[in-house]
């Protein structure tokens, strides 16, 4: 079957094409069936950039079969029969997979340190510290994955202003520990929080609207938000652009599990051959795989803080239309409905049982 050069797009201009093109050879020095391709290779040589030919001839080559088709050469049905078991060039592994992963790990580490340096440390206001008596570990944790696991919290507190946050935490502690204090002290604390006039949790109607506006106009908070956003979005965008520019147009990896045809458009966007198995993906999908898979690695090597939780951050950003007054009133309702149940009588019973068991 003769080889026909149908359409060879912009071969001379980009260095990347030269680099990748020069990788091809012949599958088939190893398996003799498709020997015609060797002729095809020589026929292609006038199209290669002149300064590249020597390099091409010097290079040791392994097959990159459908890559030929990607550049517009057709070779008929032989490709389809080999589609089950493509053997890919070692150079792809050396120069695409490993560098991409290494670069993403390094960028993650860099971003961690940069955000650590750039994080403006606001010394907490004295008034705020006086009002809140909660442990400060709550106040400065922003998006640790275990935040969703800690029992008392059902709302993400990270975007809150410091003052309401402390109050809410105190109220929650009160709710959770209500069994440990006698009824009278519980009641007095309850009125302190939910009193109609000057209770901490009570928010008059008119004020609830401008809390959000206040949050936006507060320059420190807005700056912080923007810094966090930027430090996350810019490296991702740049890396994605870099991947697209340099590493497109060839198969980068094979994912070990089969996928349906619907994923083809998503995973194989640089590859134009439609008979290649969907498992063979382009480097863009390797980038996305790394993006999601390296989160675990980051949490291991960078400590628990700033484990690149991009999805959580995106959820935080989208939930920004949140105002503290709503959570305050939610807390108020929570405290209102709680039934006080003093645990002391039960403790006495329990101590009695334990002693009895010991004496038996």
């Amino acid at each position: 079957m003769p080889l026909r050069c149908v359409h060879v797009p912009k071969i001379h201009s980009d260095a990347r094409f030269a680099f990748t093109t020069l990788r091809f050879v012949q599958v088939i020095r190893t398996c003799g069936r498709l020997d015609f391709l060797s002729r095809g290779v020589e026929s292609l040589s006038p199209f290669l950039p002149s300064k590249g030919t020597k390099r091409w001839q010097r290079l040791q080559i392994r097959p990159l079969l459908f890559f030929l088709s990607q550049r517009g050469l057709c070779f008929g049905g032989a490709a389809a029969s080999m589609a089950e078991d493509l053997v890919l060039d070692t150079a792809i592994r050396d120069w695409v997979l490993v560098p991409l992963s290494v670069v993403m790990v390094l960028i993650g580490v860099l971003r961690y340190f940069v955000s650590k340096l750039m994080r403006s440390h606001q010394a907490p206001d004295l008034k705020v510290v006086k009002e809140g008596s909660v442990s400060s570990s709550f106040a400065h944790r922003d998006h640790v994955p275990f935040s969703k696991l800690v029992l008392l919290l059902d709302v993400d507190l990270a975007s809150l202003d410091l003052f309401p946050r402390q109050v809410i935490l105190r109220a929650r502690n009160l709710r959770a520990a209500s069994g440990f204090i006698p009824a009278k002290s519980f009641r007095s604390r309850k009125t302190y929080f939910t009193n109609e006039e000057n209770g901490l949790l009570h928010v008059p109607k008119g004020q609830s609207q401008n809390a959000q506006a206040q949050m936006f106009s507060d320059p420190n908070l807005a700056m912080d938000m923007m810094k966090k956003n930027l430090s996350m979005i810019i490296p991702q965008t740049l890396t994605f652009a870099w991947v697209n520019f340099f590493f497109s147009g060839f198969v980068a990896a094979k994912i070990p599990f089969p996928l349906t045809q619907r994923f083809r458009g998503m995973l194989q966007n640089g590859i134009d051959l439609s008979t290649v198995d969907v498992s063979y993906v382009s480097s863009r999908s390797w980038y996305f795989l790394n993006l999601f898979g390296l989160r675990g690695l980051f949490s291991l090597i960078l400590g628990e803080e700033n484990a690149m939780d991009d999805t959580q951050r995106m959820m935080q950003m989208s939930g920004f239309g949140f105002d503290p007054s709503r959570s305050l009133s939610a807390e108020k309702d929570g405290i209102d409905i709680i039934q006080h149940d003093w645990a002391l009588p039960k403790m006495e019973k329990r101590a009695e049982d334990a002693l009895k068991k010991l004496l038996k």
Partner: protein
Amino acid sequence: MAVEGDPRASANRSLGDAVDDLPIFNVDNLQSNIKSIYYSRTFLSIIGGAIAGIWGFTGLTGFIFYFIVMAVASLSLAAKAKFSVHAYFDSWSRILVDGIFGGLMSFVLFWTFAYDIVHIF
């Protein structure tokens, strides 16, 4: 499979107070326990991914392998907590199912990586 060998898994400290009608927990210890579970699961997904790739599992076999590894991890964690889960955690689900799907992406990444390096290239 080095579950106990992971140094972070050794921090299973016990919780505070009365666990009777009022489940109240010493939050710091609970958090550190949860953290150690998370670390060990992440570590195991990465190692499991590399092993699955090297052994050449494809398709469903790989996922089954992942869930087997996670089940072994849960079992070992339960054994480390001397099967009295309530002394160390607040619920069974914490030790059994938590974090399994978080580790899945890391598993797939390292599985793909190892599989490609060993079998395709």
